[in-house]
């Protein structure tokens, strides 16, 4: 199992050909109190960098982009009932969606934990 990161503060946990995607602790700190999460529909085929989810804090709405291309195979329904999970457990219980990776070479541009920590400062 590998965990990778995007420059936009998303994490991907890779298990076989499926990536579980969420936002990082740094991201939830910047967002503030999350009050609503809009997730993509299961079965949707997305391209890398496409805006596919929205996370809303009291202040503002922020887009979540597909970190890689593929098919959405599952979304986290717990976020509908308790969006504040994004603040309390961003790296675990607050995963957003699982995506079946279309092209593993798209993972090459992502960061490992050390590189991401340097990026997020």
């Amino acid at each position, binding site marked *: 199992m590998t965990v990778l990161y995007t420059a936009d503060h998303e994490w991907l946990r890779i298990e076989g050909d499926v990536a579980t995607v969420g936002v990082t602790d740094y991201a939830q700190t910047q967002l503030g109190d999350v009050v609503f999460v809009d997730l993509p529909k299961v079965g949707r085929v997305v391209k890398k960098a496409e805006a596919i989810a929205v996370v809303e804090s009291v202040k503002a*709405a922020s887009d979540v982009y597909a970190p890689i291309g593929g098919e959405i195979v599952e979304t986290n329904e717990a976020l509908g009932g308790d969006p504040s999970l994004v603040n309390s457990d961003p790296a675990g219980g607050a995963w957003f969606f699982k995506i079946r990776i279309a092209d593993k070479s798209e993972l090459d541009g992502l960061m490992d934990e050390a590189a991401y920590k340097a990026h997020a400062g």
Partner: protein
Amino acid sequence: MLASQPASSAALAQSSGLKRTPLYALNVARGGKMVPFAGYEMPVQFPPGVLKEHLHTRASAGLFDVSHMGQIALRPKSGKVEDAARALERLVPQDILSIAPNRQRYALFTNAEGGVLDDLMVANFGDHLFLVVNAACKEADEAHLRRELADACIVENLSGRALIALQGPKAEAVLSKLSPGVAGMAFMDCGPRQVMGIDCFVSRSGYTGEDGFEISVPAERVEALAAALLDDPAVMPIGLGARDSLRLEAGLCLYGHDIDTETTPVEANLNWSIQKSRRSGGARAGGFPGADVILAQLTGGASRKRVGLKAEGRAPVRENAPLFGSAEGGEPVGLVTSGGFGPSVNGPVAMGYVPASHAADATQLFAEIRGQRLPVRVTPLPFSPHSYKR
């Protein structure tokens, strides 16, 4: 997922010429996340975050730095305050003459089309009027006053004064410790008072819907006063984010969003702010910019109206979302002018303009968000009840 973060605040101020309030250092020391607002570097939130700051203000007391706002003294050349009041009535549809000494009133600068140039507070300090105006409009307001009232008034920009607001159910108890006697003030009472031995102007008013006070302080003393207030365990510093969610739940207009030069006071549902004396048939009817438009709308109604809107789901409905009369098809009938998540309401709240035909309470409308039409309902304002001390 996040938009690029602003550069460090120091770099931001240097590159863009942003101004700082006298509480800048304290705001930063308290962990305020500084953002540009109306030409100033202001704290949008402190470490507890918007949600906790909002709820704390409603439950206890919050301290707001509003020193970016404009403070103006309007002094009558004749020495008689009623002459300054009569002069100011040439620019606003409110009754200024009947503001008793040590009382204040909400007012609106209007333009020839009946639009709103700014909203403001006007206080009668006995020998002069004291005005508080919005930060983004303060230069234009001051120029407007100098240009229009030069015959009767001396306009003095009180730029050496800071302004703080202490809001919430514990505000009275907290401020009483530093200024015995403030408990005797009622909503909209105001005047000079000593707070911690400092010569201040104190009013019992605010922008949150809660009981509370606004305190004008000499700039060089405000840090000491703010620090003393924050030493009280009941008080938390509050940023602009919670200031916005608090005033939205209270149904109060934000200038430049819910009211502007394109909206009249009647369209904005601010009829209550226009006293009988200035309306048709009143002792000093009309005589302000746009009176023909505004007086006609007061009698005959406006074709559109600002209303409260509650979403039926959980998704926040935000500013600029178009409003439709039906779930599919048709042209937009209105627009959301303020909206977000209301922490005390625990759900999405918004305000917007709709045709008079769609303005009745409980009217079903649809707000378009990310291509989807979400059901919203016209709802009486405020969303969160006011708790002013009458």
